[in-house]
């Protein structure tokens, strides 16, 4: 496909979080209310606030922050939860719809997407037609009007979308990006806070101020970030779209020496399978929304499926699921294959503010110490195998210590 013009063009769509859109779809009466949306299971300590309405954000709720903090910041808000599966379905539907508009779609998160708007397509003779179609398609699926911006770079398109009202599109013509960005405050730049702070100290409050400073001076002050600052303010930060592709399937396979009839023997291999799959998933930075155990033998192939309560990624999360799957195998097995399906980004878990420490083991150790203080030593014990235990006498194998 040839380009629409000589310079690259990019469309950016900003829309309310998919979880919030689903809530509004079910409860239109809450459109103007403060709403907090948590994950499907009952949100509790350690859970993340998925999305919040404008009124809730204004009251102090921070999407991506801890649920409990959000509830404290905004106690009167309606608290709802949305199942991850519902969000996944809507996400899938939106991606397909956007891919129909442009083959190059980048899904940044559940509130933001970029499309390549430079390719020639007879259906959209102008950028305005493409932007209009994009807005209408999103509104049809989300029932909420999105903001659309078109520009020559990612930052320009994003700033254009942000500058417009919901349900409208802002087009920045080629070469007009520096002029359009000139009035934008430096706070909007995707740069580290320290850089923005120094810019303010220098009296540079808008992108126009920064663009007027020669590049060598900016580089001398800010190093590599000076170059990025210059490119952002001039609308030359690049127009690369990282297209979304369906993740390839992920699995591990074992061919056994002979038919294994005893499920207990089969389960001895479970930790190894779980560990290998965890390594595969970690390399791709993905978590499994579903696990399938494929077993083959003389009678042909069969499979068992299990869906974890939340996407599993680590060996610790995978092992109980693998064991549960293996317990269902009822016939001699020669080949075992463990497949991770419905691959998604790993679940986000924020470090908790109120219960100190993120590691449960550390917290339990502290709780045990408090209990020992309260009830005296000898209440809680830890046991470990002695490194050089004398023989196999059971009483002498273990070393006991007070927790």
């Amino acid at each position: 496909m040839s380009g629409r013009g000589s310079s690259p063009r990019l469309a950016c769509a900003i829309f309310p979080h998919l979880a919030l859109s689903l809530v509004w779809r079910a409860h239109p009466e809450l459109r103007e209310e403060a709403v907090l949306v948590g994950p499907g299971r009952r949100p509790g300590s350690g859970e993340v606030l998925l999305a919040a309405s404008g009124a809730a954000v204004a009251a102090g709720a921070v999407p991506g922050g801890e649920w409990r903090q959000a509830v404290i910041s905004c106690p009167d808000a309606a608290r709802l939860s949305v199942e991850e599966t519902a969000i996944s379905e809507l996400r899938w539907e939106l991606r397909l719809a956007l891919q129909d508009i442009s083959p190059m779609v980048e899904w940044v998160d559940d509130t933001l997407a970029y499309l390549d708007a430079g390719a020639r397509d007879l259906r959209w003779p102008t950028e305005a037609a493409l932007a209009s179609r994009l807005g209408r398609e999103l509104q049809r699926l989300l029932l909420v009007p999105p903001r659309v911006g078109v520009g020559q770079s990612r930052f320009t398109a994003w700033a254009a979308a942000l500058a417009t009202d919901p349900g409208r599109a802002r087009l920045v013509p080629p070469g007009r990006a520096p002029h359009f960005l000139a009035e934008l405050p430096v706070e909007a730049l995707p740069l580290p806070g320290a850089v923005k702070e120094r810019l303010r100290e220098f009296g540079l409050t808008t992108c126009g101020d920064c663009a007027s400073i020669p590049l060598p001076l900016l580089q001398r002050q800010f190093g590599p970030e000076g170059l990025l600052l210059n490119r952002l303010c001039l609308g030359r930060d690049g127009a690369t779209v990282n297209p979304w592709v369906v993740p390839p399937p992920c699995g591990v396979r074992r061919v056994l020496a002979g038919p294994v009839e005893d499920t207990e023997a089969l389960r001895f291999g479970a930790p190894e399978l779980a560990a290998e799959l965890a390594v595969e998933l970690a390399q791709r930075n993905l978590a499994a929304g579903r696990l399938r155990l494929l077993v083959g033998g003389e009678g042909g192939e069969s499979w068992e499926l299990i869906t974890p309560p939340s996407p599993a990624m680590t060996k610790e999360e995978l092992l109980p699921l693998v064991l549960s799957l293996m317990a269902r195998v009822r016939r001699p097995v020669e080949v075992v294959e463990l497949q991770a399906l419905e691959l998604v980004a790993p679940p986000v878990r924020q470090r908790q503010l109120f219960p100190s420490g993120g590691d449960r083991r550390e917290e339990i150790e502290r709780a045990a110490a408090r209990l020992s203080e309260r009830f005296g030593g000898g209440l809680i014990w830890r046991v470990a195998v002695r490194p050089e235990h004398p023989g196999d006498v059971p009483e002498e194998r273990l070393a006991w210590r007070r927790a």
Partner: protein
Amino acid sequence: MLGDDLRNRASPALGEALATLRERYGSRAVLAGTGLSVAGLPTGIGGVDGLTGCDGLPRGRLTWVSGELGQGWFDLSLAILARLSTSLPAVLVDFSGRVDPNDIEAYGGDLRNLWLVHPRHPEQGWAAARALVEAGAGITLMVADRWEPVRRAAPATLLGALESSGGAALICGGQSLPGEVALRVAMEVECQRLAWTRVHRDISGIWVRLQVGRSRIGVSGRSCRLRIALPRPYFSGAGVAEAELEAEDLTLLREASG
């Protein structure tokens, strides 16, 4: 939920109002008499997971595995704890004083994930369980041959901690519970020995039958049969398996039942 389905058919407005209330104020704002949906903690033992109706031990609830001494509940509960300790912090409150951590290791447990509580009084055991669950223990096992009465608040606060942390707890042993504990138990699973399994005339394992006696979260009456390979010196095959009785076991079973 069946009750909700019937109400929805009878009055769609009522069903909608209930759904709105639950979404707005939490799933437990309005509760039906039966049919609560409870998340499960998979144990990896198919029979046990299928028994509870929630694919594992019910999270946020107390489950009681009852039975007389020698009926298999002790080893079954240790095997479940051992399996879960490979992936979760596990707490064992030993009121009976009979637990040998060697057995937990023999069942494949990870001792690094195990905190063993030896309470001097029942109250201490319940308080320790609650504090450790609050701190993040994923599975708690409380073992006693006979359950002593405790303050009403002790099981209630443990249940509260389980609900907020999403952990599961097993109470094992005994044929009756004090009223204040029984009140908080969501499911009772009766454990009954069917037969011993033997190798060279030595007892190597035990066949047990598990049956859901009373359940506030699922269907009562479900049952399964399990074979527990007991921990033995110089033998590494201890564990729990779900399998059909073999001819030799059936003979033993007939002998046992007279």
